[in-house]
């Protein structure tokens, strides 16, 4: 390594010695800091538990009541005269009686409609919030608007829209749309920050107009991630639509709320199963579409898409 003939391992230069000491000092400081941080964390955790009245004692006290409810959540019957198992027929009866799939459809419509309604504004705000389009201090006007929208949860937006006709599927859709502008817009802005300058310059040199530069130079670079993010927000919006239903926004969430008020646990569980089915279906379709878009290179024909579906489905479940 070195051309020195003296043993370099034993005759260490003062500079090296000094460096080692400074590293050791820094390490000591880090340990003291980590210890302090852990102490603060534990104190805050304890404080938080006291604040919410967390009590192991209460947990044990109410455990039998919960166990009783479990019997109703999962009603049992005997199959073939000897095999005890969950009585699915009770669920099915309720699902059919209340037409829960129709209610799930309303929830789906709230999420879907809200996503589509929010999309154009999210796109507009994201583009205007980009430093490349709007000069520095002014683009923060649009980012600020998106931040304010995000600061208010969708649930609260639904309450804000109450004067528009109470909490209904219609106002729930508006609330989802508003929430979408804030969240999807944020994802779009982030995506736009990372695009390359080269293609934008290239489009500028073609003599394109200002908006053409935005469309062809900027948006064309983020076309696929934008679709993927929109699908992701759609998934989240379905979940939001369920919770909005619980406060009266209609759909499957409303049924859940009603049954809870009646302490009809079996019916509640039936509703939850339908919610589970709805969300998982939407997620699988959305995720498959997203990964299909991202991989995008080998364009799959529609026939191939359908034919290969069971196999890809099994693969994605196995992941």
């Amino acid at each position, binding site marked *: 390594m070195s051309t020195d003939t003296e043993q370099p391992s034993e005759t260490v230069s003062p500079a090296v010695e000094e460096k080692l000491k400074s590293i050791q000092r820094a390490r000591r400081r880090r340990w003291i800091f980590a210890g302090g941080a852990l102490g603060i964390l534990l104190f805050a955790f304890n404080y938080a538990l006291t604040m919410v009245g967390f009590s192991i004692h209460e947990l044990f006290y109410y455990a039998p009541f919960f166990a009783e409810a479990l019997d109703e959540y999962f009603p049992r019957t005997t199959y073939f005269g000897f095999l005890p198992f969950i009585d699915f027929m009770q669920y099915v009866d309720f699902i059919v009686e209340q037409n829960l799939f129709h209610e799930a459809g309303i929830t789906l419509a709230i999420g879907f409609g809200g996503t589509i309604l929010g999309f154009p504004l999210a796109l507009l705000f994201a583009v205007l919030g980009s430093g490349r389009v709007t000069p520095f201090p002014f683009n923060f006007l649009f980012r600020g608007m998106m931040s304010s929208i995000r600061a208010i949860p969708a649930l609260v937006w639904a309450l804000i829209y109450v004067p528009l006709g109470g909490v209904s599927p219609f106002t729930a859709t508006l609330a989802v749309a508003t929430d979408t502008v804030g969240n999807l817009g944020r994802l779009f802005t982030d995506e736009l920050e990372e695009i390359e300058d080269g293609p934008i310059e*290239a*489009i*500028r040199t073609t003599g394109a107009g200002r908006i053409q530069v935005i469309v062809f130079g900027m948006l064309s670079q983020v*076309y696929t991630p934008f679709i993927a993010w929109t699908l992701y927000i759609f998934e989240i919006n379905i979940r939001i639509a369920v919770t909005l239903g619980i406060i009266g926004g209609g759909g499957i969430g409303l049924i859940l709320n009603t049954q809870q008020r009646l302490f009809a646990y079996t019916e509640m569980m039936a509703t939850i199963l339908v919610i589970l089915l709805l969300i998982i279906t939407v997620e699988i379709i959305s995720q498959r579409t997203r990964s299909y878009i991202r991989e995008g*290179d080998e364009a799959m024909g529609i026939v191939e898409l359908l034919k290969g579906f069971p196999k890809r489905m099994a693969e994605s479940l196995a992941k």
Partner: protein
Amino acid sequence: MSSIEVNNLSKRFGETQALDDVSFTIPDGEFVVVLGTSGSGKSTLLRCMNGLTQPTSGEIVINGTEITQPHPDTAMIFQQHNIIGQMSAYSNALTGSLKRTGLLSSILKRNDTEDKYRALEALETVGLLDEAQQSARRMSGGQQQRVGIARALVQEPETLLADEPVASLDPGSAQQVMEYLLTATEEHGLTTAISLHQVNLAQEFGQRFIGLKHGELVFDGYKDEFDLDVIERIYEDVNIDQLTGLGAHREDESDSDSGATGATGVADV
């Protein structure tokens, strides 16, 4: 057709003097090669010429218009291609016609039929007609560069600027691309300025030469004046033997494709 006037052009980036009082005039229809080492100011000069970079002082006048921003009649070919990977080769070429197409029509791809033909013809010119519908990001570097050239051709410019268009290409593709550029210049009556790293290609294709060193203009002349002394002045420490060796090698090659004779003159020196 266009004439380019560069008057006392200087550009500073903080401490770096990228261009220092550069002046020259290019008349209509010339095929100009800009030479210089990395960091000599070639790219800055071309970027100033198409208005992507603002000079610190001095001006550039193309056809009587002072250039302060990209001009619709000046097309640019970039070293890093700068084509849009998410779009097909055809769509990329078609963006060259944006200046003639309204916003809505351009988004809906309802460009003039003439422009659509132009885009396909340009792709044919660069030998990519069969790959027109391929997604651009799946193409090789050479193919992407040719898509960039097609885009510039569709623009129907009067001035064509190219910043090291062959720097990332293999020798064969580089040769081809240079041939496309020369043909386009002659057929469409363009005024073209190209920065190059490869002295042999410069010798073969260049008609007029601009040499830059540390941001200063060290040579401005035509083919007959462009000799080894000039190359040495521009590149300083260059190994001339190696360069002429390349030239001689190129001569062998050009016999077989009955190509240019530009390299011969220098190889003989």
